[in-house]
């Protein structure tokens, strides 16, 4: 590659980074703007302030935001955990055993993954009200499984298929017990796939908005995206823009940290499941 050509690829790379980070940088900048700065028509604040962050962590804003943050973490982590455990067994069966239901299970996972979420919301809204699950954690965890379980099965079985399972037998030949062979050989090989799947499933649950606004009504279970989406309506005389921006930055931090730490695995997980030659 010539020097000139090299430079062009670097320019293209820089453009991609700008593309990816620009809106994020904008919302961060917005979150540091003082009320007087909000409408200055400029990208950056003239005088950075942390008022907006104080607004979401203390006082009335804190009463709205902090429970929502707790709900989001709790509900998403539990939904991720449940779907990973269920998917682990299913993916093991799909990758390792020979049984006729394989295709049906993968097909069902695909069908559930493309299912329009709102079609599930309508009947659940009515049912949850009748059986007392409306506005509770389980009332969101159960429908979240429809988001996290299919992708978990799909991604994990793609990972499991690449595990060299013969190594388990090799270890047994070398004198390891079945349990030792499983624990010392298979678990370390399978763990990265399970972990990556958990991250992707968590992203999807964290991103949910429709279930969050439809199946909750108070801070008892309302997750952050729903609280954010409905916040504009709850404003009194103050422009809520800065406060929304600050809350948006806070919910973005966990996913950005996960991306920076595990980017290589996430890419493998996203593409493994869908395209493999």
């Amino acid at each position, binding site marked *: 590659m010539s020097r000139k050509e090299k430079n062009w690829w670097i320019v293209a790379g820089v453009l991609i980074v700008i593309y990816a980070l620009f809106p994020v940088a*904008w919302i961060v900048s*917005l979150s540091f703007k003082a009320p007087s700065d909000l409408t200055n*028509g400029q990208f950056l604040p003239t005088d950075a302030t942390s008022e907006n962050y104080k607004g979401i962590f203390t006082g009335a804003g804190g009463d709205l935001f902090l429970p929502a943050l707790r709900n989001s973490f709790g509900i998403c982590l539990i939904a991720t955990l449940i779907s990973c455990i269920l998917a682990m*067994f299913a993916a093991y069966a799909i990758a390792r055993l*020979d049984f006729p239901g394989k295709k049906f299970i993968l097909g069902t996972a695909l069908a559930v993954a493309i299912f329009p979420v709102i*079609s599930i919301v*309508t009947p659940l809204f009515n049912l949850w009200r009748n059986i007392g699950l409306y506005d509770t954690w389980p009332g969101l965890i159960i429908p979240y*499984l429809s988001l996290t379980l299919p992708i978990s099965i799909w991604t994990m079985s793609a990972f499991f298929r690449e595990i060299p399972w013969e190594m388990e037998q090799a270890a047994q030949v070398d004198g390891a017990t079945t349990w030792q062979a499983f624990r010392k050989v298979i678990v370390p090989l399978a763990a990265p796939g399970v972990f990556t799947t958990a991250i992707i499933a968590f992203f999807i649950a964290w991103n949910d*908005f429709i279930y969050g606004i439809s199946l909750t009504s108070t801070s008892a279970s309302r997750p952050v995206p729903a609280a954010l989406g409905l916040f504009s309506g709850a404003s009194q005389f103050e422009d809520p823009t800065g406060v929304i921006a600050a809350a948006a930055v806070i919910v973005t931090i966990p996913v950005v940290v996960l991306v920076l730490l595990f980017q290589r695995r996430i890419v493998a997980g996203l593409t493994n499941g869908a395209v493999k030659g």
Partner: protein
Amino acid sequence: MSTTTLPPTEKSAPVSAPKGTTSDRARSERKLGWLLAGPALLVMLLVTAYPILQAVYDSLFDYRLTDPENRAFNGLSNYLVILTDSTWWISIGVTVFITVVTVAVELVLGFALAFVMAKALSSIRPVLRAAILIPYAVITVVSAFAWKFAFAIDTGFVNKWFGWLPGISGDTDWFGGQWSALFVVCVAEIWKTTPFISLLLLAGLAQVPEVLQEAAKVDGATWWQRLRKVTLPNMKAAIMVAVLFRTLDAFRVFDSIFVMTAGANRTESVSFLAYRQTISRLEIGLGSAVSVLLFLVVVGIAALFIKGFKVDLAQARGEG
């Protein structure tokens, strides 16, 4: 302990092992398979099949939660009401518009991104990969707010930055008209979901045999010819899978519209219409009917892709 009754590889088992044991083994393997995968399958069916059946049932009733006593069977008349109402057709039009525009733009843009990432020097590749995952990971509501605030008259900078373009001035109200509002919705959706498409395309790009590229180069094919005759045909499976997934995902568009316009100025998508009927107006019967119709459209699109365009998902994931 190790009497080694197991053959070294399972594939040679049928040749040496007696018939009875093989079928016993196969049967117990089948049983174990269902035992392990069964719970996951059951949960998936419970959280989707049951609600959609309930929605089909509810859609046959005149049923609103503000007046639950007067619930009455009314056959298909909810569907008749919806299909003869312009609201439904506007929402279909809006949804199709957003789907077609975003998927088309994302395919081109995603291809460019994938191309740069494939060619980029290995030293900056991790940086690009991390950068491109950020829009994927940022939640849709946050992305919608970021773009909304950027285009808004009061808090935005877009009008100021692009004021030199014809038709844009300091008081251009992007959310005041149908087309301009849909434009902003599309921009936000494209920003957020192009990375996903480009990652799928990048994986597809890696499968194009390097030898073919070299051979075409030696034969004097131009860059454009190589792209059209070598790269694209070899990536067909990856492209179709990416388009199928994104089309069905785009067809569910809801979050951005909720945040940006709340369906005002004829920008309501089908999902938003179903939400408004059910959650805001408490019309369980009508809302269910919209949900069922949306479900049928999605199934139709998937069937069209899989039968019509011959997207073989099993083949695409290397199963055969």
